[in-house]
């Protein structure tokens, strides 16, 4: 059973959520997104109880990188390739988004078939670029899989793999916290926890995730912040997520990070993603009920970005 929560500050609702999962066993928490503070679990224990066990993926990764220089070099090369690819991709994405905005500015009468066709093509191009972004991330992963995979056979790493798999399998509930979304996703994949989570999900095991943790459960992870200090920007794809949640893009802290009062920006993001864009605020609690997601908290804690630029409170999806 999947439960998706909003950011836990200032008022955490993870304790109320976890109360629903009684029984024996550990509450296994993946806090790799907290990076150096991964094992600072005092607040987690205070809120989630004494059964909390942190799976220290970030710490393990640091150990592995220190002990296996060949792996470190292979990993670094892959990171460099991704960074370069993102820079180049941005050069293509920015003008493509400008084209859509310019066409909107030129007039968006729904009855004008000429404009409609051009707009549709421009938006399709943006979506295509987003698809390519995900494909190219995977292509680079594949190109470096050999070098990295060969090193993963080392005993140090394989022991960690097995420990992680068993911990995920045995836990009463697995909790994935927020933090640095790329680091979180990366460490989960590195130690094969992605596969363990998929198995757990397929078997109906309980998984609770919030903020960055919620983002990585989906098929596509979108990075977003409309007003960074160096001026307005546009959302970008990080790449594919774990795919446990289909047809949703999760946007934690949407009110803080997105200009939800700017209908054009909202519409552009919603149309571009072509799937449900859900903003999650503190207090949100989305639970999967059959094929439907239900917001078990106050409706205003979660919002849906509509393709016409409206922002609607979410009761169910």
């Amino acid at each position, binding site marked *: 059973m999947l439960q998706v929560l909003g*950011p*836990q*500050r*200032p008022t955490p609702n993870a304790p109320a959520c976890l109360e629903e999962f009684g029984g024996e066993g550990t509450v296994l928490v993946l806090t790799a*997104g907290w*990076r*150096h*503070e991964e094992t600072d679990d005092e607040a987690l224990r205070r809120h989630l109880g004494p059964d909390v066990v942190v799976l220290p993926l970030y710490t393990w990764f640091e150990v592995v990188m220190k002990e296996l220089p060949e792996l470190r070099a292979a990993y670094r090369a892959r990171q460099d390739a991704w960074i370069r690819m993102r820079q180049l991709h941005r050069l293509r994405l920015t003008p493509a988004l400008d084209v859509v905005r310019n066409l909107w500015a030129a007039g968006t009468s729904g009855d004008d078939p000429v404009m409609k066709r051009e707009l549709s093509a421009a938006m399709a191009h943006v979506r295509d670029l987003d698809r390519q972004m995900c494909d190219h991330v995977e292509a680079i992963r594949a190109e470096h899989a050999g070098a990295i995979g060969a090193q993963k056979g080392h005993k140090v790493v394989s022991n960690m793999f097995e420990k992680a798999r068993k911990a995920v399998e045995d836990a009463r509930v697995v909790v994935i916290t*927020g*933090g*640095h*979304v*790329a*680091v979180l996703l990366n460490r989960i994949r590195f130690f094969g926890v992605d596969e363990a989570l998929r198995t757990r999900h397929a078997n109906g095991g309980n998984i609770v995730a919030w*903020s*960055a943790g919620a*983002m990585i459960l989906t098929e596509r992870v979108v*990075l*977003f*912040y409309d007003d*960074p*200090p*160096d001026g307005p920007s546009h959302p*970008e794809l990080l790449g594919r997520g774990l795919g446990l949640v289909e047809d949703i893009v999760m946007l*934690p*802290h949407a009110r803080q990070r997105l200009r939800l009062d700017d209908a054009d920006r909202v519409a552009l993001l919603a149309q571009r993603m072509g799937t449900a864009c859900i903003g999650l605020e503190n207090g949100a609690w989305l639970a999967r009920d059959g094929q439907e997601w239900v917001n078990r908290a106050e409706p205003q804690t979660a919002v849906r970005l509509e393709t016409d630029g409206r922002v609607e409170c979410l009761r169910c999806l």
Partner: protein
Amino acid sequence: MPTGAMRPVHDLLAAIEAEPGREDELLAAFEADHTFPIADKNTAVFWYRGAAETTAVYLLHWVFGLESRQPFIRLGDTTAWYLPVELPHSARVEYKLEVQEGENRRWVRDPVNDRLALDPFGANSVCAMPGYREPRWTRPEPGARPGRTVTFSLQSQVYGDTRETKVYLPHEFKPHKRYPLLICHDGRDYLRFCDMVTVLDNLIARHEVAPIMVAFTSGHDRNREYGADPRQPAFLVDELLPVLRERFPVTEDRSELGVMGASFGGVTSLYTAWTRPGVFGKLLLQSGSFVFTDIGHHGRSELFDPVVDFVNDFRNDPSRIDARVFLSCGTFESLIWFNRSLKPLLQDAGIDVRFVEAQDGHNWINWRDRLRDGLTWLYPGRLWMYYE
């Protein structure tokens, strides 16, 4: 009929003229009903209630382009004085009043305005126009985990004395990690008047700025030491930096080493980068006193002689700078023209530069308010990646 900020003053005068016997009562009620200066979109009305012997009141400010000593107008035959001044909507102006009583003149802070700005010389009153907003990140923010500071002393051969440096370490500081380093001139003043520890705590906690170490150093005779004096680059590069490397985990990456300062602190930062190329990869220069001459004398004090010589040399060969540069300056400063002209000069030399102007003067609050622009430009955090 006056409108906006002048309307209440006009109404008050009319009321006093109608009921002269209630002058004191009406003046007291007026002062109780308003905050001063009274501001509308583009006008601030300054106010002073004098004594019977007050013969003149002047507004003293440092807004380049406006007369720096402006006389107040007496309100009818009363002891009250006022002065409307046109100011931009987002302006922030520091000022004092000069009160003349017979032969005596004295400078005072505005007695009906509690808003003050501290600086090394004391404090000034502040007029903040409606468009000015104090940035949230200048005050402690909930959830911002505090860094800490470590202080050490260094015996300087260059200066022949002992100098104290305070080093800010971010909350996440781990001795086995390496961190970018920014050396800050006038460190004591940046800590005191810009609340720089709070600013760093907040911006790092927001992930807007990367976790960095900041070394706060202060001069003993800063107007000389920071005025393009070769001793300062020698102190920074040959004495302070090696000790910082020895005591703290400073990055090996030169591009992550920075130096910053305001006014003459900006001059010595640029001077250091120019005379010691290849050491610092980032410059944060606030209201730098980059005075130059095309012909003739600079017309400022003799402290500027070496500064002008340096800036003239620098302008002939800016490409010796090998750093990313952030520049800021207030539009109310006489230095705005020199700073504005620096941007295209640096850009033409292929230097990555960002320039920010603000409707403020040559003061510490202006420099504090621009820190987010500068620090995020030079040491951007992973804001895009964090969803907590």
